[in-house]
């Protein structure tokens, strides 16, 4: 489903934030990415939909393959059509209601009629438990509610891959649960997911595979048991000591 080959990213042309990353992710895998702050987790995730342009390497999602060195705007659009992202800061459209946020892409990209779009919108609102807030603007919603709308908005385009960048780290602790359980629900429906998170317990619960990043490389890659219960890499051990205890 996802194939990352020789991915390298440098913002300033000198230091590499991502260093020759190679990953293959199969359909249905739920991949959690762990790592300390500043190790390039977000950058890696954002390279997958070219919100950040890689310096080098190729990325394939579904049927679209794209090379950092030579591609067109159309290639980027095509790549993006295979995935959808949920952001740390929700990034909802502030001038649109919950419903309008969800159906924006359906109307704009999929050219669905308003009626069809709203039918789908209602189903998604129901799924994330937000039916009663459908006409609320983001400014009138709590962080947890905004993030659930963010998830519904991502689901609306029926992406083959869902990308999450620390979806709960901007939330007050008491709101984290509702968002995690929404993500879990989506995961159980057989979605393919790449999830950057600091919630190690949650990663253990839903991930089928965990990647651990340090200094722009993937230093450990395995099942939750292999990574969390029997860590081999020194940096991973230190990270777990620090974050679990």
């Amino acid at each position, binding site marked *: 489903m996802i194939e990352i080959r020789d991915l390298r990213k440098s913002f300033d042309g000198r230091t590499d934030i991502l260093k020759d990353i190679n990953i293959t992710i199969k359909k249905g895998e739920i991949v959690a990415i762990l790592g300390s702050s500043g190790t390039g987790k977000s950058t890696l995730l954002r390279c997958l939909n070219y919100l950040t342009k890689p310096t080098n390497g190729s990325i394939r999602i579904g049927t679209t393959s794209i090379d950092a060195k030579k591609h067109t705007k159309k290639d980027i659009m095509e790549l*993006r059509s295979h995935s959808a992202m949920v*952001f740390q800061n929700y990034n909802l*459209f*502030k*001038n*649109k209601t919950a419903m309008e946020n969800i159906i*924006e892409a359906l109307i*704009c*990209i999929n050219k669905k009629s308003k009626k069809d779009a709203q039918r789908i919108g209602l189903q998604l609102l129901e799924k994330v438990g937000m039916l009663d807030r459908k006409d609320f603007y983001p*400014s009138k919603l709590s962080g947890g509610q905004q993030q659930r709308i963010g998830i519904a908005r991502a689901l609306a385009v029926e992406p083959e891959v869902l990308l999450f960048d620390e979806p709960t780290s901007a939330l007050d602790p008491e709101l984290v649960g509702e968002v995690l359980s929404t993500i879990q629900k989506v995961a159980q429906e057989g979605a393919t997911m790449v999830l950057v998170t600091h919630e190690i317990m949650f990663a253990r619960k839903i991930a089928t595979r965990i990647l651990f990043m340090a200094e722009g490389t993937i230093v450990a890659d395995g099942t939750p048991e292999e990574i969390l219960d029997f860590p081999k890499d020194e940096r991973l051990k230190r990270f777990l000591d620090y974050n679990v205890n």
Partner: protein
Amino acid sequence: MFDLSYFFGVFPVIASKLQVTLSLTLTAAIFSIVIGVIIAVIGYYKICFLYPITRFYLSILRGTPLVAQLYFFYYGLARVSEIVLNMKPLTAVALVLSLNTGAFMSESIRGGLLSVDSGQKEAAAMLGMSELQTIKRIVLPQAFRVSLPSLFNDLINLLKATSLAFMLGVRDIMGQAKSEGAQSFRYFEIYLAVMIIYWILVLGFSHFHKIMDRKCMDMY
């Protein structure tokens, strides 16, 4: 002494040109907004060769007096352009006012555009929306909302600036007052009436702004 009956007599005569002033204001306002949006968007994206042209345009229109622009356009360009020569004064004023106010409005709108956070644009991009769709559906609506106070400020300045139209011989409120004054010399009553009419108009615009602002507040 103040002649009350003359005042009440001349007031409706001057106010009868309200329509000229208002339609000039509204016509110029519409074109100004269009010009303002286009220039602001060019500035926002720094579109390659258009951007320096718009900067030059802004610099000229904001850096010279409106009266000079009116005269340069209507009398100056008439010497070199057949089109300007045959132009009605009212059209010329509307054009210059649009170009001038457009320059100011573009700055107001640009401020609004910059206030929209990049996260929303990234969200639009990841959904597959084009830049044009994003600016039209997400960025501009929010930018207008933020720019509303300064756009109304520009609008009120535009209304007041239409009073310069009389210099090209247009009979608006100010033009009518001038011609009344030439007959009766009762400048005090006449220009008091002018002041009151413009003042009421500005109050009306401000009130309209308040209503719109409240509507926006209720929304988001």
